[in-house]
C-alpha cells in the first residue's frame, strides 16, 4: 500500500477534525443540551372553554406532532389538571417559546358571500348581519364577507393533507381526506356553495384560522366521497402552509397560552457533571486495560478514541444547532454505547492481527490483510446500526428520535474514523515491527 497515501489520510483527517473542533470551541458552539440536562422554557396552555379529558389528550398529541413537524425536537407535552404544559428544550427566551407553541387553533369552514380588494369599508362592516364577519385573506390583499361557520377542521382526517403537483398542468394543489363522520358536514356546505344558494352566493368556501381566510376555494362539485382537492394559482410556499393549516384542523378546542415559566433540569444539575466524571473514569480504566493487554498498538486506540470524540463533539454541536435536536440523557446513552461499539472495532482488528501474527506473519505483512477482513465485519455490523437509527429517526417521535439521531451520528463517526484514521495508523505502525511485541505477544518462534 502506498505509504504516502496512508500518511496523507492520517494527517489530513486529524487536521480536519482538529480544525473543526477548534472552530467549535472557539465560537463556543456546544451541543444544545436537553430539557433533562439543562432545563428550558415551559408554556402553560389553557383551553378557552371547558372540555373533557379525552379532548385534552387529543390536543396534547396534536401539539406534540405540530411542534415536531416545525422542527422542535423532544418537547415534553402533558395534561396537568385542565391545563396543557409544554416544556421546550433548547429554547432561549420566552418570546421564542410562546411563538413556538402557537400551534393550536380551530380551523373553521365558512361560506363566502363576497370578496373584495382593499381594507373593509365602514359601510361593509355596518351591513354585516348576525354571524357574519369580514375577514382578511392570508395575503392581506382582499377582504371576504363570510357567513357563520358550518363546520370545523375536524371534518378532515388528521394529518392527511399534503401538497402535490398536478401531473398534467404542473400546478401545485393540496389533497386532504375527509373523515367518515365529517363527510356529511362537508357535503352539506359543499352542496350549498355548489348550487350558489343565498348563504353562499359566491360559490366559495373559506377555510378560516385565527380570523384569517387561509384559502377560499370555489366548490366545483356538489358532493365529495372521500377526498378533497384544492387547486388554484398557488406557489409551493402557499400550498405547504395550506396543508399545514388543514392538518392542524383537528384541534377540538382552542387553547391559549396562560404563562411562561423557566424550568430547571429534571435530571438534577449535577447529573451531567456526574455522568462526565464517571464516564471519564470508566473510559480511562478501560483504556488502561487495553494498553496492558495489547501493549504498544493500544496507543492507536487511545488516539483513535480522542479523534472519534472530537468528531462526535463537532457533529453533535452542528446537528443540535442546525436541527433543534438537543442532546438529552437519551442521546448521552447512545454515545456511551457507541464508545463500546467503537472500541469493538479496534478489538476485532487487533484480535485478527494477533491471529495472523501467531500463524507466522510479520505485523507488517499482517496489518493490511487484517484490516481488510475486519473492515468487512465492521461495515456489516455498523450498517445495521446506522439502518436502525435511520428508521427509528424517520418513523418515531419524541426522545426515541433524539436517541436514534445520536446513535446514527456516532456510528457514522466510527466508520469514518476507522477507515481514515485507524487504517493508516495501524498499517504504518505495524510496518515498523517484525515481531509480535507490537500487540503484546512475546517473540514467537
Amino acid at each position, binding site marked *: 500500500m502506498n505509504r504516502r497515501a496512508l500518511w496523507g489520510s492520517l494527517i489530513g483527517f486529524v487536521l480536519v477534525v482538529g480544525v473543526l473542533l477548534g472552530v467549535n470551541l472557539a465560537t463556543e458552539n456546544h451541543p444544545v443540551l436537553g430539557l433533562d440536562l439543562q432545563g428550558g422554557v415551559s408554556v402553560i396552555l389553557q383551553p378557552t372553554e371547558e372540555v373533557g379529558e379525552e379532548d385534552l389528550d387529543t390536543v396534547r398529541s396534536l401539539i406534540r406532532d405540530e411542534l415536531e413537524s416545525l422542527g422542535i425536537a423532544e418537547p415534553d407535552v402533558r395534561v396537568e389538571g385542565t391545563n396543557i404544559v409544554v416544556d421546550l428544550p433548547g429554547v432561549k427566551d420566552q418570546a421564542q417559546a410562546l411563538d413556538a407553541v402557537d400551534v393550536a387553533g380551530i380551523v373553521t369552514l365558512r361560506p363566502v358571500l363576497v370578496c373584495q380588494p382593499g381594507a373593509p369599508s365602514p359601510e361593509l362592516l355596518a351591513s354585516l348581519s348576525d354571524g357574519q364577519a369580514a375577514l382578511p385573506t392570508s395575503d392581506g390583499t382582499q377582504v371576504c364577507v363570510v357567513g357563520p361557520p358550518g363546520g370545523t377542521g375536524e371534518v378532515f382526517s388528521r394529518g392527511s393533507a399534503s401538497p402535490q403537483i398536478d401531473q398534467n398542468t404542473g400546478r401545485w394543489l393540496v389533497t386532504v381526506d375527509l373523515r367518515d363522520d365529517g363527510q356529511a358536514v362537508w357535503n352539506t356546505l359543499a352542496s350549498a356553495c355548489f348550487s350558489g344558494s343565498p348563504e353562499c352566493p359566491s360559490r366559495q368556501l373559506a377555510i378560516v384560522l385565527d380570523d384569517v381566510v387561509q384559502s377560499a376555494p370555489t366548490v366545483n362539485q356538489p358532493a365529495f366521497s372521500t377526498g378533497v382537492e384544492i387547486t388554484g394559482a398557488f406557489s409551493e410556499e402557499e400550498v405547504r402552509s395550506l396543508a399545514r393549516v388543514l392538518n392542524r384542523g383537528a384541534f377540538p378546542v382552542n387553547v391559549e397560552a396562560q404563562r411562561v415559566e423557566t424550568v430547571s433540569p429534571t435530571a438534577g444539575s449535577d447529573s451531567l457533571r456526574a455522568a462526565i466524571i464517571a464516564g471519564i473514569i*470508566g473510559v480511562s480504566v478501560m483504556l488502561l486495560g487495553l494498553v496492558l493487554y495489547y501493549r504498544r498498538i493500544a496507543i492507536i486506540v487511545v488516539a483513535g478514541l480522542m479523534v472519534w470524540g472530537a468528531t462526535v463533539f463537532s457533529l453533535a454541536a452542528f446537528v443540535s444547532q442546525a436541527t433543534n435536536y438537543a442532546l438529552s440523557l437519551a442521546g448521552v446513552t447512545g454515545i456511551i454505547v457507541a464508545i463500546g461499539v467503537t472500541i469493538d472495532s479496534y478489538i476485532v482488528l487487533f484480535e485478527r492481527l494477533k491471529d495472523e501474527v501467531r500463524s507466522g506473519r510479520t505485523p507488517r505483512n499482517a496489518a493490511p490483510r487484517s484490516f481488510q477482513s475486519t473492515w468487512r465485519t465492521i461495515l456489516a455490523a455498523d450498517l445495521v*446500526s446506522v439502518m436502525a437509527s435511520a428508521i427509528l429517526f424517520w418513523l418515531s417521535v419524541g426522545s426515541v428520535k433524539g436517541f436514534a439521531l445520536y446513535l446514527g451520528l456516532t456510528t457514522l463517526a466510527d466508520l469514518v474514523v476507522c477507515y481514515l484514521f485507524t487504517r493508516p495508523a495501524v498499517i504504518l505502525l505495524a510496518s515498523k515491527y517484525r515481531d509480535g511485541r507490537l500487540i503484546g505477544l512475546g517473540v514467537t518462534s
Partner: protein
Amino acid sequence: MSLDESRGTAMEVGESGRSRLFRGQTAIDFYGRRRLGLAASLGLLVLTLGSLGFRGLDLGIDFEGGVSWDVPASSFGVAEAEALLDAEGVSTDGARIQLRSSESGEFVKVQVEAAEGARAEELRAAFAEAAQVAVDDVGVNLVSSSWGSDVTGKAIRALLVFLVLVAVFISIRFEWRMAVGAIVAMLHDVVISVGIYSVFGFVVTPATVIAFLTILGYSLYDTIVVFDRIRENEARLAAHRAPFADVMNISMNQVIMRSVNTSLSSVVPVVSLLLIGAGLLGASTLSEFAIALLIGMVTGAYSSIFIAAPLLAVLKGRSAEWRDRRWARAVGEPLRAMVMGGLPAGRRVRGDEAEAGESRAVADAASVLNHAPRPRRKKRR
C-alpha cells in the same frame, strides 16, 4: 505433508486455560454444550413471562401520569422536596422535581407517579408545612402521561419496519438462517432485560425504553460480528466438507477473546456510571440508564454465542447442504489445531469416529492450496 500440523506444533500451546484464552488457543466444545445455553435462556424466558404476567412492569409517571404539587420556593428547594418525599416514604424513582420560575415567582414542581386522593392531600399539607406557606398556596393537580400511546405506537411501527429490513439485509449479506438467529437472539435480549425490570420492580421511564432500544442494536451488532466469523470459516473449510459443528466450534473459539474484551471494555464505562456516577456522586437518574444498559450488554454478548450460533447450527443441520456432513465433530487437540488456523486433518477419514461410518474424500489438495504464509526471509540489503 501436513503444513497444518507443523503449524500447530510450531507454536507452543498455553499451559493454563487462561493463557490459552489469551492466545486464542481454546478448544471449548460450544456445539456440544449448545443445549445448555438454550435451556438456561428458556428458563430465564419462563421466569420473565411469569413475572410479567403476575407482577407486570412498574411504569413511571411519563407513561401513567401521576400527581403534581406546586410548592412556592422561598426556603424550599429541590433537595428539600426530595428529602420530604423520602421521609414520607414516597419513592422518588422516576419522580420529576423541577424548579420553575415565572413572573409570579418561583416554585418547586414535584411530580410523583402514584399517590391516591387522600395521600395527595396529606402530602400537600406536608409540603405546605415544610415550605412554611398556607396549604392553599400549594397547588395539586393530576398529571397525564407525556409519553402517549401514539409515541409507543410509532416506536413499535418503526421497530417492525426495522426488523423486516434487518432480516432482508442479513439475508442478502449473509443468509436467511443467520437473519433468523440474529433476530431471535435480539428478541431474547430485549425480553430478558424487560424481565429483569419486572422481577426487580425497577421503574420503567422513557430512558429505560431508550436503553432497551440500545440493547437491541447492540445485540444485533454483536451477533453480526460473530456470524461474520462463521461465514469466513465456512468458506475456509468448504472444501473439507467439515460438519457445521466444527465450523461453529472453531468460530466461537476464535471470537471468544474478542467477545470477552469487547464486553469488558463496553461494560467498564457503564459500571463506572453506576458506581461512581449514581453511587458516589448521587446522580440517581444515571442509574436508570446504567442498569438497563449493563443488562443489555451482558445478554447481548451472551446471546450471540449461546443463542444465535446454536440456533444457526440447528437450522443449518436441517438444510440439504449440511445434512450429509454428519461426521463426528472434532474436539480436543484436533479442534485446537483448527482454531489456531489449521485445516481438518485426514484423521476422520478412517471412519472409526464417524457416527454414520461414512467415508469421504481426503481434501489434501485443498489444504495444500490453502497454504500458510511463506517463511520470512532474511532482511535484504
